[in-house]
C-alpha cells in the first residue's frame, strides 16, 4: 500500500499542481471551476499554509475533520440502520437527491455567483439531515426542495459559522409550512427480522398511519420501549434506531465534536419535565420514558441541538439552551395538537441563543 502511494505520489502531485496553476492563471476558468478544484484538492492534499505567528506548531484537528466526524456519526447513526429497516432503494436515492440539489447545485452555483467562499463540507452535514427527519415515503422532490432551501438559507444568512438558526431545521420548517400533509404522512412499517436481499433493497411495502407519539395521542396506547429503542417502529427515516443514534452520539461527544452538556441536559430535562407534568392531576400526559424514546428527540439532542454554531458559545449558556429545549419539547408534546416538538424547540432556542449568550457574559464578567 505504502509503495503504491510512493509511486503515484509524484505523478499525482505534479498533475494537481499543473491543474492548479492552469486554473489560477485563467480568470474565466477560475471563475467557473476554481472553487470546485479547491474543494477536491483540499480533500486529498493538505493545505500549504504554515504558521506565521506564535504558536508555530498546531494541532492536527481541523474544520474538515470536525465535519467529517459528524458525517461519519450520522452515517452510522442513521443511514445504516435506515437501510436495514426501510431498504436501500428507500434511503440512497434520497441521499443522492439531497446531496445533488443541496451541495452540487445550490452551493456550487452560490459559490460561483457570490464569489465569496469556497465550497464547504458543512453542506454535506446539512443535506444528510434533510432525509433523516422526513417520513420514509416522502417523495424525492420534497427532499430536493428541503435541501435546496436549507443550503440557500444558510448561504444567505452568512455561510457556515454565521447562521442564527440551524439551516437543516429551517428547511424542515419551510417544508412543514408549505406542505403540511406531506411531512406527517407516508410512514412506513420497518422491516424486522433477519435481513434478506429483498428486504435490504426494498424494505417492507406497507404504509401505516401513525407514529408512536401520534398513536399515544389518539388512543393512549404505549408502544413497547424495547422496540422503540431498537427502531422496530414507525417514524421518520433517521430517527427510529435509537440505539445506533445514542452510540454514534456518545462517540461524537467522546471525540469532543459534540458537546456532552447538550444531550445530557436536553434528555435529562425532558425526562424531569415530563415526570413533573405527569403529576398534574386530571390530565393525561405522555409518560417520561415514552417522551425520551419517541419522535426525533434522541436524534435532535445528539445531532441537531449540538450544532455548535447555532447554540451559545459559552458553556453555561449551553446548559440553559438545552434545558430550554427540553421544556419546550415537553410542553409542545403535552399541550398542543402538534405531534412532535423537537424541531420547534431547537429552532426557538436557537433564536434566543444570542440573548442567552449576552446575559451569561454579563453575569460572568460583570460588564
Amino acid at each position, binding site marked *: 500500500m505504502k509503495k503504491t502511494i510512493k509511486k503515484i505520489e509524484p505523478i499525482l502531485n505534479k498533475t494537481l499542481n499543473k491543474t492548479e496553476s492552469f486554473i489560477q492563471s485563467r480568470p474565466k476558468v477560475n471563475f467557473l471551476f476554481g472553487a470546485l478544484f479547491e474543494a477536491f484538492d483540499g480533500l486529498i492534499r493538505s493545505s500549504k499554509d504554515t504558521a506565521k505567528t*506564535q504558536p508555530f506548531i498546531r494541532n492536527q484537528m481541523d474544520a474538515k475533520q470536525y465535519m467529517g466526524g459528524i458525517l461519519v456519526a450520522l452515517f452510522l447513526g442513521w443511514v445504516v440502520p435506515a437501510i436495514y429497516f426501510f431498504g436501500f432503494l428507500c434511503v440512497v436515492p434520497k441521499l443522492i437527491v439531497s446531496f445533488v440539489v443541496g451541495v452540487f447545485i445550490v452551493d456550487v452555483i452560490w459559490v460561483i455567483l457570490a464569489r465569496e467562499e469556497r465550497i464547504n463540507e458543512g453542506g454535506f452535514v446539512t443535506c444528510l439531515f434533510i432525509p433523516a427527519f422526513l417520513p420514509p415515503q416522502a417523495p424525492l422532490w420534497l427532499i430536493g426542495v428541503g435541501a435546496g432551501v436549507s443550503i440557500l438559507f444558510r448561504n444567505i444568512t452568512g455561510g457556515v459559522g454565521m447562521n442564527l438558526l440551524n439551516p437543516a431545521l429551517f428547511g424542515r420548517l419551510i417544508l412543514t409550512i408549505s406542505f403540511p400533509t406531506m411531512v406527517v404522512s407516508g410512514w412506513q412499517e420497518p422491516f424486522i427480522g433477519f435481513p434478506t436481499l429483498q428486504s435490504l433493497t426494498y424494505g417492507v411495502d406497507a404504509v401505516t398511519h401513525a407514529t408512536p407519539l401520534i398513536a399515544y395521542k389518539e388512543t393512549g396506547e404505549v408502544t413497547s420501549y424495547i422496540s422503540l429503542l431498537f427502531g422496530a417502529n414507525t417514524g421518520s427515516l433517521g430517527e427510529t434506531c435509537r440505539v445506533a443514534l445514542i452510540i454514534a452520539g456518545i462517540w461524537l461527544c467522546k471525540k469532543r465534536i459534540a458537546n456532552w452538556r447538550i444531550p445530557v441536559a436536553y434528555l435529562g430535562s425532558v425526562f424531569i419535565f415530563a415526570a413533573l407534568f405527569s403529576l398534574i392531576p386530571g390530565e393525561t400526559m405522555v409518560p417520561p420514558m415514552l417522551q425520551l424514546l419517541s419522535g426525533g428527540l434522541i436524534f435532535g439532542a445528539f445531532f441537531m441541538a449540538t450544532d455548535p454554531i447555532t447554540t451559545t458559545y459559552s458553556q453555561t449558556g449551553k446548559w440553559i439552551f438545552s434545558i430550554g429545549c427540553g421544556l419546550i419539547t415537553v410542553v409542545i408534546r403535552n399541550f398542543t395538537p402538534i405531534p412532535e416538538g423537537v424541531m420547534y424547540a431547537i429552532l426557538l432556542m436557537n433564536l434566543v441563543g444570542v440573548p442567552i449568550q449576552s446575559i451569561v457574559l454579563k453575569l460572568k464578567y460583570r460588564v
Partner: protein
Amino acid sequence: MAKEKKSKKVYKNGFNLLEKYPIEFSEKVGTVKYDGPIEAFDFSFPRKKIDHVIINLCPMEPWALPNSAVLKNGVRNILDKLDIVRTRYFPKSHCYVVISTQETKLIKESKQHEGHEEWLHVHTLDPIYPNDAPVLIVKKILGLDIAYGRNTVEIGVLVLDPQTVVGIFEHHIRKNEFSTRLIPISGTGLRENKILEVKPGTPVQKILDGNVREDIKYRVFVDGPLNGSEVKDLTQKIDWSTKNVVVLEERDYKTLFHFARVSELLFTTSLMGELRCCIYCNYCDDICPVDLEPALYWHCYIRGEKQKARLYALEKCIECGLCSFICPSKLELLQVIKECKS
C-alpha cells in the same frame, strides 16, 4: 482506568505536550566550540526580601531540558548547593522543589530529604503544559496570585531553574569559572535531538552547524515553538536565559493524502488545515489554563471592538498559545489577544 483519567486531563485546562510530541534526546552531551566573545554568568539578585524560592524541576514541554541532564549525580547534589545558596543569599526563605508527577523516582528521592530539612518542601505537578508558567506555578504551589507579566519577585517569590542554582553556586559562592549552559536542541529539522553545552554569546548558527538537515527548509525557534520566538537572524546569540532551541521543518507545500500521514506533518510548521470562520467548538476555552474564552476576543476583534475584548478578563491571559494551537479553524487567537491587549 488510570489511562482514561490521564487522557481526560490532557484537554482540560492545559495540554499534555509530552504525550503528543515524545522527544528523545541522545545520551551524550555535545559541546559547541566558539572562540568569539562570550557572555559571563551574572545573576542579578533581587533587592526585595525573598520568602519563597521555587525550584522548577518539572519541564512540561518535551523540547525542554530533561531533569536527567542536570541531575546526573542525583538530587542530593543540587539540594546541597541549594542549601548553601539559600543560607547565603535568601536566609529564612523556604524552598519548594516542584517535580512532575511522572518522575516517581525523583519524587521519592527528594521526599527522603524533605524529612530532614525544615526549609525544604517537595511538590508535584501534573505534566500538563503550561503548569510551569510563573503565574500558574506560584498559584498552584503557594496559592499566591500574580498578574501576568509582573515579576514574581514583587511578591517575594523567586522561581529558579536548576541550572541557575548551579550557576549561582559555582560563580558567586565558589568563584569558579562558570561559562557553559546546557541547551537542548530538537525538532524535525534536525538529524538528531541533542543536548549541547553552549557558551552563552554563541550565535545560533554555530549550534545548528552540522546538526540540521540540509535536504529541507527549516525554521528556528528559541524557547519552544508554542510561546517562544522565531530566530530570523541566525547570528542572534544564545544568552543565559535561553531555554532551548527547536528547529522545525517548513512544510510550505501541499502534502498528498495528508490524513494518512499525520505523523509526518505533526511537528512541523504546517498549519494542518486552512483558515476558517470560528465554529464555536469550545476547544479554546476548554484548553485555556486560566479559564478564559478566547473565541470572544476573536469575535470582538473582527468586529473592530478591541476595547470590548478587554472587558472579558483579557488581562488574565498568560499568552501560553494553547488556544491557537488547538483551534480547528486555525485562527490566530494569540495574535488577536496580543493586539487587543496593546
